[in-house]
């Protein structure tokens, strides 16, 4: 058991370092279901209204793809159905990032070496990280079950089942992240691997849900643990056996992580760094070459992913030729799409999510890649040569700004052409591409904002930029659900399919993005670096 020596001390260190973040994370997970309960209580005055909503939703591809089928037509059942995605997303993402932060990132920073030289066993770091995050997941679940059963007044069994889904998903993805940390050769690539696995499993669940609603086979969503989360069926006929699946999978991935950790040398990864060229090629000629080298991986990956997802969605959308008017509430909700088919509406919403939201997230990450260059000390190096600050910033922000149009092209063209080929309506390719491009200015505003924050408040730029993006996204989600009126100053409302397109407002967004970017560049030129 020497490999575990020092685990207790490391657990105290982790809790001490991250107690604030852990508390905030748990609070976020607990917040979703009560907010949804309040919103749904306002939406439905009577049981008839609720049942009408359930009937309409069951045939609605847009919603079923995201949230899965509704298993219980009760208040509690709807809250669980609506909150599942949010809660599982927060639990899985938080658990993954925490585990990588305290395993692979510690190793990269050289702190694991420092700690490992003390009376600390080889597996103590991994054990401490997993223990803390799984205890946090279980604690959050216990609090959530208590909150739903005792405060909100939902049935006890269902509340326990729903809350346990949170803990099960969190623990499983913590284990997956531990494996990613062993396999990858750096914390950055471990994060990419873990989040990529999550996105892939999410896509499987979505395709399974949508396929089943379209009359396809029911087993596809069972291929993904995120599909199992829906099969727990809280507040309906709870299937407790699903937790056995979660437990077995978690034990499996954690065992795999331990097996790898016990064999691996410090600093090494299974995906090792090989040798490369002994001199720089023509591509690495200057700042743009360097920025491209640093940014191309995420950009190419995102482009490929959006092209594939777009193609899959285009195929699904083409299968729903029924008019939007068949569903009066949906037609009212998406008034500007009057006359379109249900599939068209589905694709319009999906392209909004892919280009506006995913494109903005990609852009923010690209700008913050420049900030990482600064904190890692690389920027000092570059600016000690004859490279100017403006040109360096331009190389990174320029590539960030190129992201959304490229992603719009990938998603819009692939979705549109598959739709056109499948449905025989040739105009769909151009329509989808045009629709995708309208979301680019909103993503640009986020890139401009991230640049301005980087220039003026470099230390806080990361948390602030992601925080604002999360706030805007949450506002849009609440606005879509009818819980709030259209939020002011939120760039993501402008091109939303719920509103008629106004090209002048798009131009305003473009100008705002340009202004923020220039302000960021000016602030960056005036501040200290490093």
């Amino acid at each position, binding site marked *: 058991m020497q490999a575990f020596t020092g685990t207790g001390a490391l657990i105290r260190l982790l809790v001490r370092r991250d107690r604030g973040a852990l508390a905030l994370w748990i609070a976020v997970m607990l917040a979703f279901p009560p907010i949804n309960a309040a919103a749904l209580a306002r939406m439905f005055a009577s049981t008839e209204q609720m049942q009408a909503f359930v009937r309409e939703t069951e045939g609605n591809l847009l919603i079923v793809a995201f949230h899965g089928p509704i298993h219980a037509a009760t208040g509690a059942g709807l809250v669980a159905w609506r909150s599942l995605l949010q809660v599982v997303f927060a639990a899985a993402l938080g658990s993954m990032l925490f585990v990588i932060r305290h395993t692979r990132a510690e190793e990269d920073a050289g702190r694991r070496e420092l700690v490992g030289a003390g009376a600390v066993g080889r597996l103590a770091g991994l054990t401490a990280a997993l223990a803390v995050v799984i205890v946090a997941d279980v604690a959050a679940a216990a609090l959530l079950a208590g909150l739903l059963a005792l405060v909100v007044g939902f049935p006890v069994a269902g509340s326990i089942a729903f809350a346990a889904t949170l803990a099960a998903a969190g623990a499983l993805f913590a284990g997956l992240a531990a494996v990613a940390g062993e396999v990858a*050769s*750096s914390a950055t690539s471990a994060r990419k691997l873990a989040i990529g696995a999550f996105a892939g499993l999410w896509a499987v669940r979505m395709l399974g849900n949508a396929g089943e609603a379209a009359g396809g086979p029911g087993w596809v969503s069972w291929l993904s643990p995120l599909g199992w989360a829906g099969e727990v069926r809280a507040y309906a006929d709870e299937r407790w056996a699903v937790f056995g699946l979660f437990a077995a999978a978690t034990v499996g991935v954690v065992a795999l992580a331990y097996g790898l950790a016990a064999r691996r040398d410090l600093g090494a990864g299974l995906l090792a*760094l*090989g*040798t*490369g*060229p*002994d*001199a*720089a*090629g023509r591509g*690495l*000629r*200057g*700042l743009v*070459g*360097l920025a491209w*080298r*640093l940014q191309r991986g995420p950009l190419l990956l995102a482009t490929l992913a959006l092209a594939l997802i777009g193609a899959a969605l285009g195929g699904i959308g083409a299968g729903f030729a029924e008019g939007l008017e068949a569903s009066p509430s949906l037609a009212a909700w998406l008034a500007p799409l009057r006359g379109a088919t249900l599939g068209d509406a589905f694709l319009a919403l999906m392209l909004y999510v892919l280009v506006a939201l995913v494109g903005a997230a990609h852009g923010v990450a690209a700008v913050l890649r420049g900030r990482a260059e600064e904190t*890692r*000390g*690389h920027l*000092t*190096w*570059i*600016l*000690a*040569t*004859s*490279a*100017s*600050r403006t040109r360096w910033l331009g190389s990174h922000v320029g590539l960030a700004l190129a992201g959304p149009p490229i992603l719009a092209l990938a998603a819009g063209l692939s979705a549109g052409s598959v739709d056109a080929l499948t449905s025989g309506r040739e105009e769909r390719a151009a329509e989808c591409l045009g629709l995708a491009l309208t979301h680019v200015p909103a993503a640009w505003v986020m890139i401009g904002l991230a640049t301005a924050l980087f220039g003026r408040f470099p230390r806080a730029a990361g948390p602030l930029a992601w925080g604002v993006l999360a706030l805007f996204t949450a506002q849009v989600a609440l606005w879509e659900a009818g819980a709030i009126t259209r939020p002011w100053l939120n760039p993501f409302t402008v091109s939303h399919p719920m509103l008629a397109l106004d090209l002048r407002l798009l131009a305003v967004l473009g100008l705002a993005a340009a202004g923020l970017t220039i302000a960021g560049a000016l602030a960056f030129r*005036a501040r*200290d*670096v*490093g």
Partner: protein
Amino acid sequence: MTEVIVTRGLVKTYGRTRALDGLDLTVAAGEVHGFLGPNGAGKSTTFRALLGLVGADAGEARLLGGDPWRDGPALHRHLAYVPGDVTLWPDLTGGEIVDLLGRLRGGLDPRRRAALIERFELDPRRRAGTYSKGNRQKVALVAAFAADVALLLLDEPTSGLDPLMEVVFRECVIEARAAGRTVLLSSHILSEVEATCDHVSIIRAGRIVESGSLAALRHLTRTRVEVELATTPPAALPGAHDVRVEGQRLGCEVEAEAIEPVFRRLAELGIRAITVHPPTLEQLFMRHYQAEAR
């Protein structure tokens, strides 16, 4: 232009800390200038200010005849910088980074690059993520010495190098001086400074507390003398300090101006054996380090 670096009353504060507190540093063209000081004395901040990475709160800095904050990129064409803690892009190879830095500076001599890679025994095909601390340092040194520049700014450049590579580094600095380059070298390795530098400045708490040629600075410290006399030593010896007498043996410390009268007096007493230790940089340096600790 005889002065490559001039700062006058340079002040830089970070919150309540005064990293630079009226720094007056002068480095003449063609000299190898040692820059010494305890940790946290402001050495790295000085380099950052000279590179125009941070703006000074007060005072003036001139580098190669220009203002480093305003004319940074133009001036940087003529200098190369090596930080003490080199961080590299983990996915790029050492050779790619040497070339990239050279291109960003406006070109480098391929023959010199090849020769330096050979001398520093650097494997340029390895990804930087797999380099040890010493190897990362070598990448920066090869990039700096291969550049055709007038000024080298070296901030603790040899941390992590093994003794063999340390020798190569010293050769490179001496060659740079022979080629007419100016070098500002900060280091904690005093033997390295003694072997390569002709001028030294000592910084403490953001100020230069001592500056001058190594010979002149030696002058400021006392020479240690141990002598065995033919007769019983006198109780007092004018000009000598810390006199200790043990039988016919006498030990003392002598200031530079008092060497001649003291030795005349000792010669009169009859010298049988004598050892003289010249002042070391270490003594000089310790004086300031200890003053810091007090």
